[in-house]
Each structure stands twice: as structure tokens, then as C-alpha cells.
């Protein structure tokens, strides 16, 4: 187990280095862009004097290395600066929106996971059968349908025509109060508060956008599950297991799934990272107050601190996901863990 500990430590250090690299990159990138944040903050009616004043206030007149020092110092204190668009601290603004994105991302992820992986495995097990054909058509649809169109059609059918989904006005019906915040996830918080009405309402708002996203992201999950499971099922050790008479279900789930899981896990990481980036289109159509819309607005108004912090956030999400995936790899695969 000490090997394992070493492995974690090494990975953790690498993760820290990666995060630091991302910070440098984000810092340089926003400094290298041609726009002057001070001029943007001052607005179109400003004169050169005001811009100069803002430059001094924002420390833009100092050497790059000093600016970087200030920037990392701020980051250490958890200070992401203020958004010039709204004049609010970016940390708070992101903080408000992250739970919304997290709830949507987690729901979509869980649906895609419990839907995509088994479908892929079944398709691999019955490969080239009609089941496989249907699953493949499904995955192709997921990969090729435009998300925007799918979301709009979803709203039209399930909200406007059938009334199965709640009005796409965000996370709760207008006038229903948010549950007391514990996790920020309304489904969980409302249950913890014992508020079944709010839970139902939150669920009615969540399921359609979550399923829409899940439909799209389950496509790569199905594909990777199917192909890696197919590879594993052709592996020699599966033949060995068959040769000693292991029944098919055990074969599939004990020998097969665990081995096929490594490439699937990588894809799951990518998918979850993608979902955590906040999906602009789904957030637009469902008026979901997540970070995707926030980032879009920040980007289209050159809101530097906000863009910078968003990029940093997503990078940290990816880097941490990679770290977690590495950990799970190591737990599953002794070859990584022990060497």
C-alpha cells in the first residue's frame, strides 16, 4: 500500500504543477489579448485620463512579473477580482452559478452513465444483433442531432404540448422559494429540508434539460463502452474464464466490465468535464442560471476577470478530474498501482 501512497503523492504533486501551469497560461493569455481592460472598464465615453487612472488602480502599469505576483497572491486568498460588467466579485458570481451547473451536470452525467454504459455493454455482448443495431442508431443520433434543436423540440413537446415538464424558466417555478442551502443542489436540499413540494418542482424543472444533455453525451459513452467491451470480450482471459465455466453474467460484469472500465472511465471524465463547463445552449433554452451563460456573457463583453476565472475554474475541474480518474485507475489496475 505504500506504493499506492507514493503513487497518489506523485499524482497530486503533478496535479498541483498542472494547476500552476494553468494559472500562468491563463494569466499570460489574458494579458496578451489586444484589448485594454482599463479602457473597457472605463467605457466608451471615457477620456484618456480616466483610462490611465483605471490602469493604475488595476495595476496594469506595473511590470508583468509584479502583476503575476499580485494575481497569484489574490488567487491564494480566493480573490478572483471583480467582474467589470457587473462590478461584483467574480468568486461570488461563479459561486452562485456553480450549484445550478453542478446539479444539471451531475443529473445529466448520472443519466448518461446508467444509460450509456449498460447500453454499450449490451450492444457489445450481442454485437451485430438487432439490439446492437438499435443502440448504434441511438448513439449516432445522439452524436449528430443538434443540441439546440433537440432542446427546443423537447420544450415544445414535453412542456408546451404534454405539460410533463415544468415551464422552462430555470430551476424552480416562479414564486417557489429555494430550499435552505446546504449543498446548493435543490433536489438534495429540498429532501434534507423535508420539503416534498419543492423537490417535485425542482425535479420537474430538472429532468428535461438533464435528459436532453444526457442524450447528447451518452453517445460517446455508448460508443466507448461498446468498443472497449467488445475488445475485452475477445481477450484471452475472457476465454480462460469461459473455459473454467464462469457463467455469462459474471463474465460480463466481473471480468468484463472492470477491464473495459478503464477506457470508459477516461471518457466519463471528459464528459463530466464538458458538462461542468456549463452548456450554453441548454442553459439558454431552459433559462438555467448556470456558468455557461455567465461565461458567454463575460466573453462577449470582454469581462477579463470573469473569463479568466471561468477558464481557471474549468481547467481546475479537468485537472482534478484527471487526478481522480488516475486514482480510480490505480485502484482498479494493479499494474499502475504497484509499479
Amino acid at each position, binding site marked *: 500500500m505504500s506504493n499506492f501512497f507514493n503513487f497518489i503523492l506523485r499524482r497530486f504533486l503533478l496535479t498541483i504543477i498542472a494547476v500552476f501551469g494553468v494559472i500562468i497560461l491563463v494569466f499570460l493569455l489574458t494579458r496578451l489579448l*489586444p*484589448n485594454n481592460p482599463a*479602457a*473597457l472598464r472605463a*467605457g*466608451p*465615453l*471615457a*477620456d484618456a485620463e480616466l483610462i490611465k487612472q483605471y490602469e493604475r488602480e488595476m495595476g496594469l502599469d506595473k511590470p508583468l512579473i509584479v502583476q503575476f505576483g499580485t494575481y497569484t497572491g489574490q488567487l491564494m486568498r480566493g480573490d478572483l477580482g471583480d467582474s467589470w*460588467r*457587473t*462590478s*461584483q*466579485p467574480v*468568486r*461570488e*458570481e*461563479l*459561486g*452562485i*452559478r*456553480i*450549484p445550478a451547473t*453542478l446539479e444539471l451536470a*451531475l443529473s445529466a452525467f448520472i443519466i448518461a452513465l446508467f444509460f450509456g454504459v449498460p447500453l454499450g455493454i449490451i450492444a457489445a455482448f450481442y454485437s451485430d444483433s438487432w439490439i446492437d443495431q438499435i443502440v448504434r442508431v441511438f448513439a449516432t443520433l445522439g452524436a449528430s442531432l443538434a443540441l439546440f434543436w433537440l432542446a*427546443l423540440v423537447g*420544450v415544445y413537446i414535453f*412542456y*408546451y404540448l404534454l405539460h410533463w415538464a415544468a*415551464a*422552462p*424558466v*430555470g*430551476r424552480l417555478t*416562479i*414564486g417557489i422559494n429555494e430550499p435552505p*442551502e*446546504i*449543498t*446548493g*443542489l435543490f433536489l438534495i436540499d429540498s429532501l434534507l429540508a423535508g420539503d416534498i413540494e419543492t423537490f417535485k418542482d425542482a425535479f420537474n424543472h430538472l429532468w428535461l434539460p438533464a435528459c436532453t444533455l444526457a442524450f447528447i453525451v451518452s453517445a460517446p459513452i455508448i460508443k466507448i463502452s461498446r468498443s472497449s467491451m467488445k475488445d475485452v470480450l475477445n481477450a484471452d482471459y475472457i476465454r480462460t474464464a469461459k473455459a473454467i465455466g464462469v457463467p455469462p453474467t459474471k463474465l460480463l460484469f466481473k471480468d468484463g466490465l472492470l477491464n473495459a472500465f478503464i477506457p470508459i472511465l477516461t471518457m466519463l471524465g471528459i464528459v463530466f468535464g464538458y458538462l461542468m463547463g456549463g452548456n450554453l445552449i441548454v*442553459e*439558454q*433554452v*431552459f*433559462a438555467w*442560471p448556470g456558468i455557461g*451563460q*455567465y461565461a458567454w*456573457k463575460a*466573453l*462577449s*463583453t*470582454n469581462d477579463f476577470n470573469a473569463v479568466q476565472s471561468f477558464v481557471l475554474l474549468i481547467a481546475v475541474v479537468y485537472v*482534478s478530474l484527471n487526478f*481522480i480518474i488516475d*486514482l*480510480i485507475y490505480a*485502484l*482498479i489496475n494493479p499494474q499502475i498501482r504497484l509499479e
Partner: protein
Amino acid sequence: MKVRYTNILVVMVIIFSMIIVSCQSAPTPEETIPTEAVQLTDEIEGVVEETEQPATSSEKPTIIVAIDGDIDHIELQQFRTIAGYDATANLYEPLVTQKAVQDENGVWIGSNDYVGAGAESWEVSDDGLVYTFHLRKEAKFADGTPVTAKDYYITFDRAINGNGYIKLLLPSFAGVESIDQVKVIDDYTLQITQNKASSLSLIIYGFQVLGAMSEKTIKDHATADDPWAETWHRNNANPSGPYVITSWKPGEEYVFEPNPFYWRGPDYYGNSKVIYRVIPDASTREQLLRAGDIDIAQGIPYKDIADLQKDSNLTFFKIKTPRVYHAGMNVTKKPFDDVRVRKAVSMAVDYQAIVDNVIYGFGENPKSPVGVSMPTHTDEFWPYEGPNIEDAKALLAEAGYPDGFEVDLLVPQEDQARMDAATWIQAGLATIGVKVNINAQPTAQFNSLLDTHEQPFYMFEWYSWGNDPAFQLHWNFRCEAWTNYALYCDPAMDKIIDDLIVTSDPDKREELSYQGQKMALDTATWIYLYQNDWVVAAQKGVTGVGFFNDLHTHFSNLTK
């Protein structure tokens, strides 16, 4: 095998707890945005219930408005968004306000007459320099304290000496450069001494940006770094106007409720609550409206209106606004430095096609830099009659471009209407041999490029807060104006603008405005494209939608 499953379990627990921790460490809206205003009103509502009949307000409807853009913040002198415009105008009351009149469709419109708001009455000295305002003694802030001259004084003080943008308007349009020009005579008398007479003073004093802010509240929340309490006011308010904001969820929802201390009293309100809900997607707004889940939808695309009008449960409010869309030509860049080129280009455009196809007939060509619904507008100097290819070609040849030329047209890519209009310009100019390359840029990039003043050809629009030609001409045709992106400069035009500001006689002003409009058309720095109507879709039965100079809607009129 057992051991490994426990390992996985451990990691799962770690991941889950990380997620939980990250959620908890993320600041919550309640924690980070102090909703003092909410608490205040909660207490106040208790008071109201004791003294008044609570039933009257609860019978009034709640109006749900779907807005397309977010409120950035509600710091009165610094907000930047249209939704911020709406919000602040209902929270703060200036000294004077536009007189509201109802047009034939029942839409409330701000007229060009000004009436007292925070001020009961006012006098202007004969030389037009001294404005003395007599304040309403019954006016109170939402915390119950009276609105006094000191409060207006500090409002002007932070406007002039704080970080807001109104200080860019006060000197040129109202002759106020220093806070020393503002005097508190007594608790209910405020005197402003301008250093020049201005016909626009009341328009400026009527902007919500100069609405009364409580001196006490500002002082309570001021810090050494922030003497004007700007940070606190970004998402809190102690309003002097008709509404208070009781819920603040950025990017999601804003709730406005009547200010119980507002001097006009409960009968003034047609509703008990106005909810602004951010619904960014237009087709979602349309479906919500059709399903009856919202009362009013802003920002419905023109192309969808015809279809929505078939729904008998909906009603539409259509208001002319003097927002002039144009393609500007930089007079310092070849080939637009030659007025003949600019005129030739203007001749080649099919204006009617643009109105029909870009804004689907919801609006018109203003045929002047001064929009149709702006005082002194005239189209009598408009020289163009549909595309005139022959004359345009001849003029172009005369200017030395018989074979045309090639030019980039800068367009903000998020604005579909401008993108569409750009293709019509492209098509029109192609007929005279001018090749237009559409340079579509994200809005932020578009603005940055424009601010370099190096763009030869760009799609822009201008809307003046003050409904007066002086503003329109000043920002677009004065030599030194930053937003004069065509870099047109003529001392004669500057003189006209200066005269427009100081002259109060209406006939004289009309004459000046006509001269200005004629000069602008003669110099042909703009291709005039359209001014589009402001269209609001609502459930049948909703009334009280309006459009004012200083805001889009007076919430108090909204009802159903």
C-alpha cells in the same frame, strides 16, 4: 477482491465529499449579497399591515416579465444594461419626470413635457441659470426617512465626484461642473446654479441617474476606499422611487414590490409585485407566453411576431423609438474621404427592402440622424429615392472610382438584424462595383475595434437617453465626441449643437435642428438603415406597458 472494493468505496466517498465541500465553499446568494433591502421591507410590511388594509395590495396581480438580458447591477450611477435601466428607474425618483400620456393604443409614453416628481414645483431664473426646486415634504425613502434636499445634494455630489458616467453629461448639457453649484437652501429647497443656460437641463435632472439617494444610507455603507458606498449600492437600494427590490438572483430573477413609503400611496399601483425573470432564449420566451406562464415578454424577434399574432390570447404593444441604425463611413479613410463616394454608396442601397426584410416592417427609415419620434425630426432633406444605380455609378466615376473598390464592413455578429442589413448593403453596393467584405466580430471585439477609430466602414446604432436632437447630433457629429466614429468634423456643426443646447425658443431650436439634419445628410457619413419599433408581447388583458425616455416601463401602471 474485497479489499479493492473498499478502496473504490473510499475514493467514491472522497469524491463525493469533495463535491459537497466545493458546494459549501461556494458562497450562496444569501450569504454574499446582503439583502438588506429585503429585510427592510419585510419589517416595513409589518408596519403597513398594522396601519392599512393589507387586503387591497394582495388583490392586485403579480406581473411576470420575461427579460432577455440580465441586470448587471443597480448602482444608480454606474449600471450598464437595459434591464438595469428599467430597474433603477423604478427604484429612484429624480426631481422631475416626463409627463406620461397614453397613446391611441393605450401605451404610456413619456412626453416632452416635464412635471414634478421629487420636486413639487420649481422656478428658473430669467437668465436661465438658476434652478430652484421645492421638494415634496411627504416624499420618503423605503426605510421611512424623509427625502430632503441634503439627499439630492449627495446624489449630485457622487454624480460629479464619484465614478459614475453622468459627470460626462452634466457640464456640457446642464452647465454643472462642480458640486459647489448645488446648494441646499433648506430641508426642502435645492438650488442649482448653472454656468450656462441650457434647454436640456430638465431632461438631465429628470434622468433616474440623478434620482434621490439617501445620505444616511450612503454614509452608513461608505468605507475609506469607497466613500460613495458604490459597492453596497450595486445590489442593495434604499429607494426613493415607487418600488423596492425584494429578491436579487443574478441571471435568474429579480422581484420588485411597491415601496410602502412612496408618497403617491397604494392606489398608485396596478400590481402587488413585478417579477423580472431572465429567459435568454427567444423561442423559450414565446412558448412561455403562449402557455400563459408569463405575462409579458420582451425581446421577441420581429420575424416571429406575425406568427404569434395569430394567437388570440396575446396582445402586442408597439412603440416608436428614435434608435437610428446606420452604416458609418470614416471620412479620414480612403475612399470615404470623398463625399461623392459616400453619396454614391448611399444611392445604391435599397432602403425599403431593408425595412421589409431586416425588421419585417416593424419600423421605418428615419431619413435623418434625428429619429422619427424625436422632436424636430424632418425627412425633407432626404435625397434618395430607392436605388439609383446610374447616378451612383456616375458619381463614383466622377470621384475617380469607375471600377468601384473593395472595403471591409465591421458588424457585431450577435446582432442578427445588423448582420442581415449588412448583406443588403453588400448586395446594393455590388451593383455599382463596390465589393463589401462583411467583417463579423463578437460584440466585445466589435466595440474594441470601433474604439480604435480606425474602421473605415461599420454598422452602428445610436439612441439618446434624452429625447432631443442636441444629444443625437452631439454624440455623433461633434468633432471631439468619442462616439463620432465617422470622425466627421465641421465647426459649423459644433456651433449648431452649442446653440441647440443653450437656445430655449422652440421655433429657433427647430430651425437649428433642421440645419443640423441637413448638414448631416449633405455630408452623407451615414447610410441610414432603419429605426425599429420597440415591441412587447403580453397576455391579453395586460395593460400599462409604456416607454419613457428615462426607462422603458413604469412598473406601477402594469396590471392585468
